[in-house]
């Protein structure tokens, strides 16, 4: 079980993702803008993983990730909090490369729910093994 922060401006997608990840046994917090996401990071114990949408008002996903680097908000011990980038954008792989995360999923895949769970598990597993 992991603590996961979902940051997505689409209220429906955020709530459904929360239900999905909770069904996978995880504890979920939700924010709807990058700015809310940063506040959530500051106000709570750091999550084990971030599920981050790309296009959001106020502060986008990549901007939030950049702010995390600037303020070391993504640091926990020696490893950064893994970010699973989610979006319907066709250039998602490029955006993920710029953000510096190997974990990303297109929201328009046939089975987004299963893919998201699988990608989250992979991000948690790989980060955990690095920490060991």
């Amino acid at each position, binding site marked *: 079980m992991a603590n996961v922060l979902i940051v997505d401006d689409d209220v429906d997608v955020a709530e*459904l993702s929360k239900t999905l990840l909770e*069904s996978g046994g995880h504890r979920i917090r939700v924010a709807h803008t990058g700015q809310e996401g940063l506040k959530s990071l500051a106000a709570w114990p750091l999550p084990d993983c971030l599920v981050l949408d790309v296009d959001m008002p106020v502060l986008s996903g990549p901007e939030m990730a950049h702010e995390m680097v600037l303020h070391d908000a993504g640091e926990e011990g020696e490893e950064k909090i893994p970010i699973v980038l989610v979006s319907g954008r066709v250039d998602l792989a490029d955006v993920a490369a710029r953000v510096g995360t190997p974990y990303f999923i297109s929201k328009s895949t046939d089975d987004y729910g299963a893919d998201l769970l699988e990608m989250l598990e992979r991000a948690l597993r790989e980060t955990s093994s690095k920490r060991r």
Partner: protein
Amino acid sequence: MLHEFVTTRREDLIARTRAKVAQRSAPTPTENELTSGVPLFLDQLVAVLRVASAKTKQDIQTSASNRGGELLHKGFTVAQVIRDYGDICQAITELATEVNEPITPDEFHTLNKSLDDAMAEAVTSFTAQRELRIADAETERAGAFAHELRNRLSATKLGFALLRSGAAPFGGSVAAVVESNLERMNVLIDRSLVNVRVDSNNVHNERVALHQILEEAEINGTLEAKQRGVSLSVLPVESHLSVNVDPHILSGALANLIQNALKFTRSGGHVAVVATVKDEHVVIDVVDECGGLPPGKAQELFSAFRQHSKNRSGLGLGLFISRKGVEACGGTLYVRDVPGTGCVFTIELPRAANAD
């Protein structure tokens, strides 16, 4: 040579042209036009005349045309370019007459030809730029539509997967989200079809009893009102009251206004649809309790891609399309802000004559 005369008398010609431009009533002279535009136009004309004194007719036309198009790219309007060139032409001939500077028939012809070509190119460039802007707006609209449709489809698929796997029960909040997203896709497609019909002039206005439109709007709005915890009232109208409209387009526009009103009215609030007769018009007011608009925002509401919802759901195209739809039905759509309370969106349509 004419270009030498214009060069020598440059300052005088600038002053005379500025005086003419300043006196003009339409298009209203701008500071940029007076300070930068007039000297620029005159210098360009000198360059064209200089080319004309040495080169062929084709060279003159090319040179003049290029400059006419270039002026538009510098931010001057097509009306400014045409009127300012006309003023310069007048200033040159007036000054030449005053100081007895002979302008040969050839030079006069070249002067007029240069102006004509520059004006023609300005108009052509303007048309091309406008068509490009329209095409860009269409592409942006189609892209935004596809993006929003994909978002709603993604949410629906995710919700459906949860229901199918048993992770969420049928009849619970996930099912409600799926239902809501299906409805939003339905609205998106309907709205898009209305837009296509209006843009392609596929509008079929016919005599329609107003009560039918209102009853349909009430039936469609009631479910959403219930979901949002808002009460909706649609006051009945006399059965003989009719309008000449395309019923699908008007219904789409009214449904969108009601949907917006429900969306922005707090839970527990009220939305009213009230139709009245004013002279030869039928007036349909959609009255919400959104709390009122920030100052100066009323007209912005009808621009494309304006997002007014805190959760940013939707495209921001609804009111833009609604206004186009109402106008295609021969009516007008406008909004009145009631500060601190809400908004009144009004559809005003010509009343159909009573059937014999």
